[in-house]
């Protein structure tokens, strides 16, 4: 079964400096019908004005991933981590017992567009940690590039999360296609980050998501002229 979450039906917050779309309930947007999907709790599509961002705030027991589409983010936290990162980078923070951090647009001139993802951990009270991996753009072109998984920092350079979930990104040029097979009992979330995607014969556009249950064969293709970029969450 595939359930589409249309981009325009997401929660929306426009604070001037922040334009954010919430696939699931977040902050002032609360919809009991959209509290997350399996262990995927938050999927925010954020655009932050130059020089602006989220001041120091706390997290506990959450796997927090950021994936920049355009621009750059500056991250600072109570573990002493200070990093600036941009596209083709997966950044994660395991909040565990508690962490305080801030994140700001790293540019004074350009907005930053990024996806923030929260995944509920399988274990609580882990030691907080920070990870970041940069990869080459071609690693996601025409194939799935693992961004995060339970085994993390293997040869693929993915971040380790404390959950049996895998997050992939793929970029397809017009006419390209990909397949993914879900193991029995697994679920998936598909999120279109850019362009138009044909997913199991259903048309998704930028910002659309799809919840997948009781399916094994997933097929993806880019039919539009500009190609597409999307995230695939393979979830317990």
């Amino acid at each position, binding site marked *: 079964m595939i359930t589409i979450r249309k981009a325009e039906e997401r929660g929306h917050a426009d604070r001037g400096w922040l334009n954010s779309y919430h696939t699931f309930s977040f902050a002032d947007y609360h919809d009991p019908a959209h509290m997350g999907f399996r262990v995927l709790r938050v999927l925010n599509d954020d655009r932050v004005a130059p*020089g602006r*961002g989220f*001041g*120091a*705030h*706390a*997290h*506990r027991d959450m796997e927090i991933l950021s994936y920049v589409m355009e621009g750059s983010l500056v991250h*600072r936290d*109570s573990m002493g981590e200070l990093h600036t990162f941009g596209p083709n980078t997966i950044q994660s923070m395991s909040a565990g*017992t*508690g*962490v*305080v951090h*801030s994140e*700001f647009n790293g540019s004074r001139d350009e907005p930053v567009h990024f996806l923030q993802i929260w995944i509920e951990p399988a274990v609580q009270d882990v030691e907080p940690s920070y990870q970041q991996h940069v990869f080459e753009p071609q690693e996601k072109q025409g194939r799935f590039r693992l961004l995060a998984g339970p085994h993390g920092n293997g040869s693929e350079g993915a971040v380790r999360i404390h959950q049996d979930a895998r997050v992939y990104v793929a970029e397809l040029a017009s006419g390209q296609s990909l397949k993914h097979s879900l193991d029995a009992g697994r679920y998936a979330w598909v999120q279109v980050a850019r362009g138009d995607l044909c997913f199991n014969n259903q048309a998704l556009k930028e910002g659309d998501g799809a919840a997948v249950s009781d399916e094994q064969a997933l097929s993806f293709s880019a039919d539009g002229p500009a190609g597409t970029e999307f995230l695939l969450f393979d979830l317990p």
Partner: protein
Amino acid sequence: MNVLVVFYSLSGATERLALAAAVGAVQGRAAIRLRRLAVQSGDSTIEERLDREYVAPKEVDARWADAIVLGAPARLNSSSPALNECFRLLRSAEVQGKVGAALVSNGAFETLQGAMSELGLKLVPREQAATDSVDSARQLGRRVAESAGKSASPVLS
């Protein structure tokens, strides 16, 4: 429970302690708000960053809090307008009876704790509060959260 951490930082050193105290409070399962007193450090780079990452405390923050941690540098300027404004704000928020802790090394501890005591805050004991390392600041934050969680039992009058 809710813990408000307010700090007065010129160089970033007290900010680090405040962050550690906030983490400790989160470890103690508190919700936290971190606020910075608007003081001029003379270092525009640090000031610009601190101004970007923190806002100044408001009365609503103090009313929200079950516990208040106030961090300041060892060489505290007790006549600082920002500090005086903070105490005015805390007084106006009627914080008496809430848990409080001074996050400062020995130099200014008595000054800060004395002022907090005058507000009627229930202060954590000195041996737990006098802190100038990240680890002890984190422990203090956690202890403050735990004390606020069982606020019926007075800590130190």
